[in-house]
């Protein structure tokens, strides 16, 4: 009986508050503006994803073009011989038969990371990390760090994506709706009537609060669903990633609602509530993330990438010197006759350089990755201080534009790079020329698209708990404040 009664006060509070909200034009404006901004952000995200896909397509087209040109030249060279009139010998770095040089550039394979199904949701790092990489036999420093062209001021400003709207704008609307429940009723005079009339005033007030926060949360969730449907297709709505996205947005909204209710439950005036909550918003969305990043960078500074390049250059110099020394010994032993020269000399020098550089650069890259991992771990751990930081990362993970997915991509490239080098350098060392069959058999970088669609973003449990736990604690404080509320 009492639970049924409780729910009737709660439901009455919710129903009548919803009725009042329906009649308030400002609330409609705020909700429509929020939904509108979310839809705009998704539209921008969709266009960015389209641009990325175009870049990948263009890189693949270029690869196909290059390879077909090389195969044509190869055919010409091979055909030229039977005709008796030998075709002019191309230099080694343009000779499609030269394994050492072809693998190092002209025949380079394109390794592409296609945008994930929900990539339109967050830009993440995808504007800095080009989606298509040209893998060569050289060391990693020569191909892995290519950049897409973009105005650095653009990159600094950041894009309008859903992650931005959800992390920064959405909480403001939730706060604006929820900050003033008890304080406003008290200042308006209706709190006295409510306390006097209701058997469980806190249930009625909780109902009112629910109506007030359900509106912006529902509006955002609907806008997200509509946007994903319109810009990415309805199949995305059925994916576990989308479900994860909805949960992230819901929990984040509930966190801010709980915070507003907890501050309201302190029983101070609406001016106090407003200023405190603005301060909390600034602290949680702006100051804390900035402080976290600065601290992590201070404690574990980023590695100097130029070390890789210098190591590769040092390796090439050492290889040259070693080569010169062995040539000198050879000349000493055999005299000028039989000294290898010309194109073969270039090829062998190049091979030696690549071998030496590869080993050193791999070691340095591993060290750098470890250094960055330490910085990232510290930032991740400190990130639990700010639900905004956690939510931003979670959304990037859902969109597949965070570093988790990119690191998996880099792992695949590492394995592919080894295969690629093996294919070309084994032939180069054996002195074998590339044939048409070799061109057909070259390793190709494929990506299992199905696994992208089906696999839900991993590692969301931590951030979700990191937002849910403070939310629950604040909700408890809020409930106690509401129970204790006085006129």
């Amino acid at each position, binding site marked *: 009986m009492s639970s049924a009664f409780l729910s009737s*006060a709660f439901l009455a509070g919710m129903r009548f508050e919803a009725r009042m909200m329906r009649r308030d034009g400002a609330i409609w404006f705020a909700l429509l503006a929020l939904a509108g901004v979310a839809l705009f952000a998704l539209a921008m995200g969709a266009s960015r994803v389209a641009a990325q896909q175009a870049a990948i397509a263009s890189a693949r087209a270029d690869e196909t073009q290059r390879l077909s040109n090389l195969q044509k030249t190869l055919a010409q060279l091979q055909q030229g011989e039977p005709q008796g009139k030998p075709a002019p010998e191309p230099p080694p770095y343009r000779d499609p038969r030269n394994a050492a040089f072809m693998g190092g550039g002209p025949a380079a394979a394109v390794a592409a990371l296609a945008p994930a199904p929900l990539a339109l949701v967050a830009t993440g790092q995808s504007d800095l990390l080009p989606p298509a990489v040209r893998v060569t036999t050289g060391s990693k420093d020569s191909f892995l760090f290519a950049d897409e062209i973009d105005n650095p001021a653009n990159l600094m400003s950041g894009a309008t994506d859903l992650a931005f709207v959800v992390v920064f704008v959405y909480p403001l609307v939730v706060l604006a709706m929820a900050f003033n429940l008890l304080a406003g009723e008290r200042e*308006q005079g209706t709190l006295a009537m409510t306390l006097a009339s209701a058997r469980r005033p806190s249930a009625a007030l909780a109902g009112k609060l629910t109506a007030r926060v359900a509106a912006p949360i529902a509006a955002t969730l609907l806008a997200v669903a509509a946007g994903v449907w319109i810009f990415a297709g309805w199949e995305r709505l059925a994916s576990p990633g989308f479900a994860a996205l909805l949960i992230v947005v819901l929990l984040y909204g509930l966190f801010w609602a709980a915070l507003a209710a907890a501050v309201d439950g302190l029983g101070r005036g609406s001016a106090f509530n407003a200023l405190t909550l603005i301060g909390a918003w600034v602290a949680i969305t702006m100051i804390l993330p900035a402080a976290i990043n600065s601290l992590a960078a201070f404690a574990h500074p980023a590695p100097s990438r130029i070390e890789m390049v210098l190591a590769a250059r040092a390796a090439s110099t050492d290889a040259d010197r070693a080569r010169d020394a062995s040539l000198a010994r050879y000349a000493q032993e055999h005299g000028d006759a039989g000294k290898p020269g010309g194109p073969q000399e270039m090829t062998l020098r190049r091979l030696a350089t690549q071998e030496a550089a590869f080993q050193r650069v791999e070691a340095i890259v591993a060290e750098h990755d470890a250094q960055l991992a330490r910085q990232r771990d510290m930032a991740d751990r400190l990130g639990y201080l700010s639900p905004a930081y956690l939510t931003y990362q979670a959304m990037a993970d859902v969109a597949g534009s965070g570093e988790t997915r990119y690191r998996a991509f880099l792992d695949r490239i590492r394995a592919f790079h080894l295969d690629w080098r093996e294919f070309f350098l084994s032939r180069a060392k054996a002195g074998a020329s590339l044939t048409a069959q070799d061109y057909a058999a070259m390793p190709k970088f494929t990506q299992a698209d199905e696994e992208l669609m089906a696999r839900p973003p991993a590692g969301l449990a931590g951030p979700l708990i990191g937002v849910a736990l403070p939310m629950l604690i604040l909700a408890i404080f809020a409930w106690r404040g509401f129970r204790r509320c006085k006129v």
Partner: protein
Amino acid sequence: MLEARNLTKRYDGADAPALDRLNLTVPGGEVFCLLGPNGAGKTTTVNLFLNFIDPTEGQALVCGIDAAVDPSAARARLAYIPEQVMLYGALTGLENLQYFTEISGAEAPRDELLSLLAAAGLPRDAFERPVSFYSKGMRQKVGVAIALARRAQALVLDEPTSGLDPLAANEFAALIERLRKDGMAVLMVTHDLFLAKQCGTKIGIMAQGRLASVFGADDVDHLGLERAYLDLFASAAA
């Protein structure tokens, strides 16, 4: 019925208590009018019965239930009409009545609520208009309807006729008389000597937190009441 036993309230930082060992009883069917100047402790008494504040000593009992110990049970039996009946401006009079009735746990179908509004004297065409357009008298009538809908056994009123024109005040007095006849215990705080004489069965005059004198409403005429009131404060001021 309403009872105050040695009810005392001392606010922090104040030398004298706002309410000093108040003892009064309002049985069902009686209207007790509490008169007194500002700061005498009338509003404090009301707040203690409603448990908006806690007493320092003593008890405020509503139908035998201590308001400080079990406020929700006490409030379930007590209806309240404040000086300014604050309602939700965006809702209509009927919707406000529906809302406050529902959260009080009372069952009230729409027809019954409509008849309550009519019984309280609210004009029919105002039922579905937003409260932001109501006059003070109209809002007060909604307040009465809310009190009626809650089927409370006791009613506390704070300055009910302040700001009402004589006609509206008269209507109000008639309404209170009907409630009294139905067996409600009514505690009314007011400045209005005429209203006290008209509605009340007992009149109490408060000064400096104490009930200075109590007498039956019939025991004194208007002039006598006025003289008693002024004498009390002339001697207090002196």
